[in-house]
């Protein structure tokens, strides 16, 4: 059986202006339904890699093909979850989730239904009329995820979405993200500093080395979905955790 890749990166290079090479020779093929994490030391260009796939910045060399299109033309298939929740402070929670639907011209009845549905999925049905400042960091990130998923994107790009949260909130949001993905499947790209998070969520982990960013190791995560929270305490999981941590250390040196 031959599955066509949804996202292909071929010898991708990135340099900002006349600066040093940030990413060098990145090759990657991702099929529909995968969840790929990028992990690596600071400055390895993992966020840049995500932004390249999103078409928010252009590759200096090499090619990125998403479902047969350039990243810019494939935006319709994608949504981006930013590092901070990146909500509009003047819009209420429901209005923030509604925005992408307004921008693509959905009729208002369908928008309202979809927003309500999304807020319930992320467990914020009661917070629809609140303003972002009235929410905790974790809740704001939930709103951000609800907003991203409101348009049912085929590909979801997440740039360290839980980096600023405490461990307990992060674990909970990881579990919720898996539950959401089980209902509304999407292909995921995920940038993180956390090895646990990467192993728990991903089908594959791409370990990057820095200066310039190169693929140092690719680790397959064999655990089947749904993954219960307790998976994180099993020997198999801990073993893979150790393996990934070692790969990360190797990448750093």
């Amino acid at each position, binding site marked *: 059986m031959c599955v066509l890749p949804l996202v292909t990166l071929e010898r991708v290079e990135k340099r900002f202006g006349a600066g040093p090479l940030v990413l060098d020779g990145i090759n990657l093929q991702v099929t529909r339904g995968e969840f790929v994490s990028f992990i690596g030391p600071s400055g390895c260009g993992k966020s840049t890699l995500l932004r390249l796939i*999103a078409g*928010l910045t252009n590759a200096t060399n090499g090619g990125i093909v998403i479902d047969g299109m350039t990243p810019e033309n494939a*935006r*319709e298939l*994608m*949504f*981006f979850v*930013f590092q*901070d929740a*990146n909500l*509009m*402070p*003047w*819009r209420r929670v429901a209005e923030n989730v509604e*925005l*992408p639907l*307004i*921008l*693509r011209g959905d009729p208002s009845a369908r928008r309202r239904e979809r927003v309500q549905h999304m807020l319930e999925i992320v467990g914020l049905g009661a917070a629809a009329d609140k*303003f*972002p*400042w009235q929410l905790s960091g974790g809740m704001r990130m939930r709103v951000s995820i609800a907003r991203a998923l409101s*348009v049912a994107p085929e590909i979801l790009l997440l740039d360290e979405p839980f980096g600023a949260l405490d461990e307990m909130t992060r674990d909970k949001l990881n579990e919720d993200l898996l539950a959401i993905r089980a209902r509304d499947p999407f292909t995921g790209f995920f940038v993180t500093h956390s090895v646990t998070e990467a192993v728990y969520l991903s089908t594959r982990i791409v370990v990057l080395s820095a200066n310039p960013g190169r693929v140092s190791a690719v680790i397959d995560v064999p655990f089947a979905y749904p993954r219960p929270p307790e998976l994180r305490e099993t020997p198999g999981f801990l073993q893979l955790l150790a393996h990934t941590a070692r790969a990360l250390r190797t990448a750093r040196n």
Partner: protein
Amino acid sequence: MKNQILSIVQPALAGVALLGLWYAAKAVFELPSFILPSPDEILVAAWDERSTLMAAAMVTMRGAILGFLAAVGVGFLLAMALGFSPRIKASFYPYILVLQMMPVTILAPVFVLWLGQGLPSIVAITFMIGFFPVVANTTMGFISVDRNLRELLLMCKATRAQEIRYLRIPGAMPYFLTGVKIAGTLAPIGAIVGDFLAGSATGGVGGIGYMTISYFSQLKTPALFATGMVACVIGFGFVGSVNLLHWRLLHSWHDSMVKKE
């Protein structure tokens, strides 16, 4: 509660002290009423001249409101042009500055030549005084857009018009309202200065600025002071209304208004 009482009692006591000082100065230096009228003489003059002062206040308010609305409206549109096109900004901003540097006392006779004595000139002068803070602040607001939110709209394939409507304008609102607030403080002063320089009494009565000249030339000093009192009331009313608008539009979300526990 204690603070609330203090916040009333303290300025009240200070007021009594200042009034005492006023009467004392008048008595000690034996100042006649046409040099320094006493507060009670001013109140009596204000009562005697109430119909004239009311009418004058109306004239001034009309000039202030029209000039203020022109400053806010034109200022906003100008800021949009400046904020959305770096080329327009680079070309025209220096001349807006030139206009701002031009003293009103020089512009006033020009306006009188063009528009004649009276309301149109007063509105023009009020506009000239008020529009620059609106333009400067709002332009800044349109330019300083959150980069991440721009990228969000980029991911949503938002059109230029959508970006302006859903991001630029709401994002510039706090800046715009700061400009509006400043314009609101300046507008009554602008209208009075305008009236002083270009006012006329045709059609019955002049504005506060005009009455100031009139009372001065008749040495009706208590009434002259009363015009000052009326000007203060107008100013407070204006600033209060503008602040209320500012609060109404921002209190639910903006950092400057939001109470954080």
